[in-house]
């Protein structure tokens, strides 16, 4: 039995209206940010904690994930703070490369000590964005180094269209970007505002 024509006449626009009114678009980036973190973490755990890897292999894999998942340039520049402006082009280039190398080495080696820890994404909330074109989400997660006392890790994820990047990681409320920035500016300040002392230390850390 065919439906009366009037039902279609009403139902058609109604369906369209419901689809349009669904608030999916507004907070879509929250879901997508959570999924982004979960999948990045899964890949990191799978590839970096696998058996029989040399430190070099682990570092190479971590570098790939780090470049894909983190706003490295934005973070590196933020961490240098006001001293970015005074730095020469050569210093900036070297600094960017060193910053990435040192983080890659440190974190790839840390991953070698993990095995079988559980990681659980909990919720994502909107955070203020300094840029109109970008959404920012804070994705809250728990890392279970032991089952009783999970560590709270909050990921700040900025997104533009289909591009999602982590701009900061907070562990128990302590921001990695802020900590790194405080350290770097302390080194530079005690060297009368010259970035060279910091580059020296970073070079030693990379090679050490």
């Amino acid at each position: 039995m065919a439906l009366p024509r009037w039902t279609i006449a009403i139902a058609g626009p109604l369906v369209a209206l419901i689809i349009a009114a669904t608030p999916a678009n507004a907070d879509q980036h929250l879901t997508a940010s959570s999924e982004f973190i979960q999948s990045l973490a899964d890949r990191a755990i799978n590839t970096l904690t696998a058996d029989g890897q040399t430190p070099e292999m682990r570092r190479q894999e971590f570098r790939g994930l780090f470049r894909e998942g983190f706003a490295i340039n934005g973070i590196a520049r933020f961490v240098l703070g006001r001293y970015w402006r005074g730095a020469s082009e050569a210093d900036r280039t070297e600094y960017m490369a060193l910053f990435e190398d040192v983080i890659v080495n440190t974190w790839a080696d840390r991953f070698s000590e993990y095995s079988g820890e559980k990681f659980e994404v909990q919720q994502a909330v909107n955070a203020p964005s300094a840029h109109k074109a970008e959404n920012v989400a804070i994705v809250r997660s728990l890392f279970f180094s032991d089952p009783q006392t999970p560590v709270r890790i909050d990921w700040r994820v900025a997104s533009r269209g289909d591009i999602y990047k982590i701009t900061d990681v907070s562990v128990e409320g302590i921001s990695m970007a802020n900590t790194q920035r405080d350290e770097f500016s302390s080194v530079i300040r005690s060297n009368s505002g010259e970035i060279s002392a910091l580059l020296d230390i970073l070079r030693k850390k990379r090679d050490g």
Partner: protein
Amino acid sequence: MPLLKRGSGRILGVALLAVALTACAGTPNDDPDAAADVEINDPLEIPNRFIFAFNVGLDQLVLQPAAVTYRDLMPDELKVPIGNLIANLFMPLSFLHSMLQGDFERAEMAASRFVASAPTLFLGNPFPDRAPVYEDAGQTLGVWGAGTGPYIMLPVLGPSNVRDTTGTIVDFFIDPLGIVAGSQATIGRGVGSAVLSREGNLEQVRDLQRNSVDYYAAVRSLYGQRRVAEIKNGSLEATQAAPTIGLELDFEPAPKQSSAATTQ
């Protein structure tokens, strides 16, 4: 509800804040790279670094060995009750400060943790069903709106600031444990919790010493951020750090950087 509990201290807070802010007010700055610079309030940096070096030495000589000994020699079955006992002894103070902060939810958490453990207090509450909450006078002053004041490295006690040092002194007099059981009890609890938390942080501290570019500055930064997080009791707003990092430098796929392949 959160607005209400924060609001109750606000009136007193505004008065304290006005005084405190004059000490640490920054000038507005148009430079985007400097905009997020939080001016580090450490006018005593030179003596602080000196005391820090002393504390690090003391840690290596006394606290770290004590923590390692505890980790290696204390039977695991006893570690849980000992940890719980020490946590429980903080609950009366946490209850008092939760009340002073107008945070009745956490006051209830502290009270029920303590009461539930009372029958087995010296067995250390073998089956805690409530997580401990930690509140102190420094946090209460923070909730009331007091600024931190300059950073202070206290001998033996470690990182602090003017607000939290004031809090430590206040707590020495108003801690219910001290009133009921005497100051030996609070000192004993303090020593115990120092060893236990050091035991919990053995790897993290070693990692930080090895990987930081300026250990003193790293500890100062961590202390300041941790206190902010503790005052906000882990609410998500507490973690809105680094909001100025956008994607404008990373919107395009990152160019291959030259030193990448040559890294050891």
